């Protein structure tokens, strides 16, 4: 607990690096390989959004604990354009870039906790957590 991994996102290799580091951390936290994949996929989506919409930003990975439950937290921070209508952005299929529009709603579905904090002109922070099911 406490230690966190800060990963700059400024190029597409950084997206690959972030999801691989996320998978490794999830493995350390004892997540099953299925859950590691789920966490890596969610990181991939939000890291790509940083690159695509804000050009650069940061992913912060950490271990979290709540009572005897262990989990990983992923925070994505950018100082990009922000999201004007978060509710719409969270809808499956909504995209301002002719994308699939599955990134935000999909990541929300993959993780246990998901929070978007965005101010137009200031930037976006997405905080998500996944908790281990048992043991």
């Amino acid at each position, binding site marked *: *607990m*406490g*230690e966190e991994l800060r990963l700059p996102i400024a190029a597409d290799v950084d997206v690959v690096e972030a999801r691989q580091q996320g998978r490794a951390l999830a493995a350390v936290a004892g997540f*099953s390989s*299925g859950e590691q994949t789920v966490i890596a996929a969610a990181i991939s989506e939000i890291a790509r959004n940083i690159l695509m919409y804000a050009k650069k930003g940061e992913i912060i990975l950490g*271990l979290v*604990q709540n009572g*005897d439950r262990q989990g990983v937290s992923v925070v994505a921070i950018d100082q990009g354009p922000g999201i004007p209508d978060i509710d719409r952005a969270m809808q*499956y*299929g909504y995209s301002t870039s002719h994308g*699939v529009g*599955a990134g935000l709603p999909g990541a929300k579905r993959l993780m246990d906790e998901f929070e978007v904090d965005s101010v137009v002109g200031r930037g976006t922070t997405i905080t998500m957590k996944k908790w281990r*099911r*048992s*043991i």
Partner: protein
Amino acid sequence: MADTKRSMSVSTRASEAPALTESSAGLLRELVAHLRQNRTQLREEWARRITRAELLTAMTEEEIFAEATAVYDNYVEALETGTFEALQAYSRRLSERIIPRGVETDEVVGIVLLLRDVLARSLFNKYQDNVEKLNRILDSYEPAANRIANTVAVGFVEERERIIRQQQEAIRELSTPVLQVRERLLILPIIGVIDPQRARQLTEQLLRAIRANRAKVVVIDVTGVAAMDSGVANHLVQTVEASRLLGATVIVTGLSPEIAQTLVTIGVDLSEMATVGDLQGGIEEAERLLADRAAPTATPVREIAPESQR
């Protein structure tokens, strides 16, 4: 994790700091020296009392003596240093070893209390001529001894809970087997109540089985499912989709018309799902699909449509 432990032991030391005045620190040192000097005799006495009290009956006398020695040394060290990490770690390892052999919580609490008793008696014998000093020694010994007993017991209980959860997990996995009835055909009969966690496990198990058995067709029979809400139904849809990604066609059987109607009403898209009335019919349909070598079971390429809206 490591940080949590560190901060825990810090607060431990802090909370006991008031008791550790100059003289009581000196008393603890004297106490530790006494326990070190009489190590052989005291741990033998302890092991004897454990056997006599019929605790740890699952273990041989040699094993009891070996563990007693280790616990004794850790105990004295915890008294001396006021830190509990080593003892905590040891009690966890000890629990790991003895829990599978059927040792119960009350036995572990029992042996730690016995040790406290053995040591207290020995202190009593040593200082019985000086009641005032005896009292002071016991005053500094008691809180530490209680804390040690607590550490060991909590370590044991936690480990036990962890093992129980692990066993429950294993039982869950066993309770829904993926059956291979013939080459490339799997049957997954789902029985009972499905919660989200169980649903996830079922899917993971099924997908691995598809790959391991190179299955082309899967029959999921939900006749035995007590109730199906939209969460479970959507999960079923996801399972069908994921199976297709591995090249297997899923046939769902045992979905009553009422349930199907309800699911459609609450907005679950069943259109992509092949459903057949009962298991027997499902297996026959699967056999047909498998026999039909000319038609590949992979979904034929249709017009490329955007991903379904969900």
